């Protein structure tokens, strides 16, 4: 019985982190129609910054906020310096994929840079709250105060962002700039600035994902860490499951993925985690490519 509960709890917690990553990816997608693979690198960078901050300020929460702010700033910089130039000169046969390839290059640069400057350093981030499970009726649950924070943070973000996107003027501008930048321009929307805003928010979300996930896992931070690559991949899979168009979908996708993987972890075999995720991705793409929350089946770009 408790194994089941624990499985669900594990699934929800790790699912929330995937959801955060998925939110970052969906945000960039919805505001600029680019999937930013460098998100993982940015999250990594922000987390390292957070690590340094913990050293300075001795507070996880302050570090988290700083990491998010700087994550937003870095993201904005990347958008202004790289993406704008790219969008202007984007012609020719690889026009559709050039931004994607560019974000990959960025990922490589960030990782390489971090490796060079921080490679030898040992970086560990410990959870700020107790990560010891609650005890109920003598059994320890796989749920702790810290994990509770993670889940709540994701929920708050999701609700907040959804509201912004659908009910506010800025949200309208964000959506219009993504769907039809030329029309938005003709309507007076400052499309460039709006794009940068979208990327900033995504940068903050990615930073949060990195900062929250690291203490949740092993706590160790390193540039080649498979964890961050997996975070990106799982975040992407979560986004696809939920439908790249929808923030709510990103959360649902993340939680669903988390639950499925938790089941595999606890009941089947831990080594099959990646395969399961990949199979899930392929299945969703074949059966319902627009994702759970997606509306139009034809919308592939």
């Amino acid at each position: 019985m408790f194994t089941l509960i624990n499985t669900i709890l594990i699934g929800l917690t790790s699912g929330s982190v995937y959801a955060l990553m998925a939110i970052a990816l969906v945000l960039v997608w919805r505001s600029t129609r680019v999937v930013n693979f460098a998100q993982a690198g940015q999250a990594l960078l922000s987390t390292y910054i957070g690590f340094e901050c913990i050293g300075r300020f001795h507070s996880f929460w302050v570090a988290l906020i700083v990491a998010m702010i700087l994550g937003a700033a870095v993201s904005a910089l990347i958008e202004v310096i790289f993406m704008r130039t790219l969008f202007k000169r984007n012609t020719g046969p690889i026009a559709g994929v050039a931004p994607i390839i560019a974000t990959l290059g960025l990922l490589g640069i960030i990782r390489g840079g971090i490796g060079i400057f921080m490679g030898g350093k040992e970086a560990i981030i410990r959870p700020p709250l107790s990560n010891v499970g609650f005890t109920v009726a003598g059994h320890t649950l796989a749920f702790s105060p810290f994990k509770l924070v993670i889940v709540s943070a994701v929920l708050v973000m999701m609700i907040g962002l959804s509201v912004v996107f659908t009910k506010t003027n800025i949200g309208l501008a964000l959506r219009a700039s993504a769907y039809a930048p030329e029309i938005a321009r003709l309507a007076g929307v400052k499309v460039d600035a709006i794009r940068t805003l979208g990327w900033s928010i995504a940068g903050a979300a990615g930073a949060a994902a990195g900062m929250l996930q690291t203490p949740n896992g092993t706590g160790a931070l390193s540039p080649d860490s498979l964890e961050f690559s997996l975070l990106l991949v799982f975040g992407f899979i979560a986004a696809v499951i939920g439908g790249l168009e929808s923030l709510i979908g990103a959360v649902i996708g993340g939680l669903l993925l988390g639950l499925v993987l938790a089941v595999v972890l606890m009941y089947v075999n831990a080594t099959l985690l990646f395969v399961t995720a990949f199979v899930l991705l392929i299945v969703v793409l074949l059966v319902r490519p627009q994702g759970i929350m997606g509306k139009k089946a034809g919308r592939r770009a």
Partner: protein
Amino acid sequence: MIGIVLFLVGNRVDELRVYEGATLAMYVVAIASIILLTGYSGQVSLGHGALLAIGGYSAVLARNYWSLPIWLCFAVAVLTAAAAGAVLGTAAARLSGPYLAGTTLALAVGLPSIANQFSFLGGEQGLLFDVGVPPNSLGADFSPYKWYFWIAASAALVMVWWLQNILRSRYGRTWRAVRGDEIAAQLAGIHAGKSKALAFTVSSGVAGLAGALLAMTIGTVSPSAFPLTLSFSLLTGAVLSGVTTLPGVMIGAVTLVATPEIAGAISHRLGNSGGVTTNLPGLLVSALLILVVMLIPNGPVEQLRSVRVRRNANIHR
């Protein structure tokens, strides 16, 4: 023609260069596979490293378990990778842009780790690839590396020649039609899904060969031989070469071989710290990728061509 040049070069050049030559040939094949897939068929694969891995592992397994002659092992590599490509390609045919990119990325991240799960794949250490010694008929001091180089170079030549023909044939034209405008192509009677899947299959087979060549050159296969950065490097090489044209393929290959050298030289100047040495090559490649994509997205070959076209147009005014 190129073959004769290579033969002459191969005879006079020292061990390290020959080794690099073999690697060069491998890159040529690998980049060609991406040019086919992305440049001609318009599909982006971020995980070609995984296909190389499949090819490499199959070749090694064929050798170790069935003791097949080398050429047959290569053929096995090609076929296995092509089969994997067929499966992937059918699924991928329905995808586009970011979905395809993300899926292939997932593959690249996860596939090497699968090797760790199954013991017959050698786990983290990997498996050894014994290609055998060069035949006696070539003389006593024909070093193994020269032999590798010859094999790799000839394989590369054959493959490139074959690819050039395919790309010029109606298959190539079909792929380009689908890439240009899928709906228009369908209206012209082309079955877009089949065409894309076919491109994926062929590209994977070619990649498989590259993987086998890689295995031969470094003598082993292991998860660490096919890291994520390999996929990125290949993509960079392809973009550098001019993703839509085959002739430029040498440019990309040479860059990929030269970069670790250059990186090594730089890190040596900087004092050889561990962090720098491991990370600099990847960093340089990525930086190059961004620069090229931002500034000359069509590759230097196309860029030169279009400059010429513009000059001619101006003359007519």
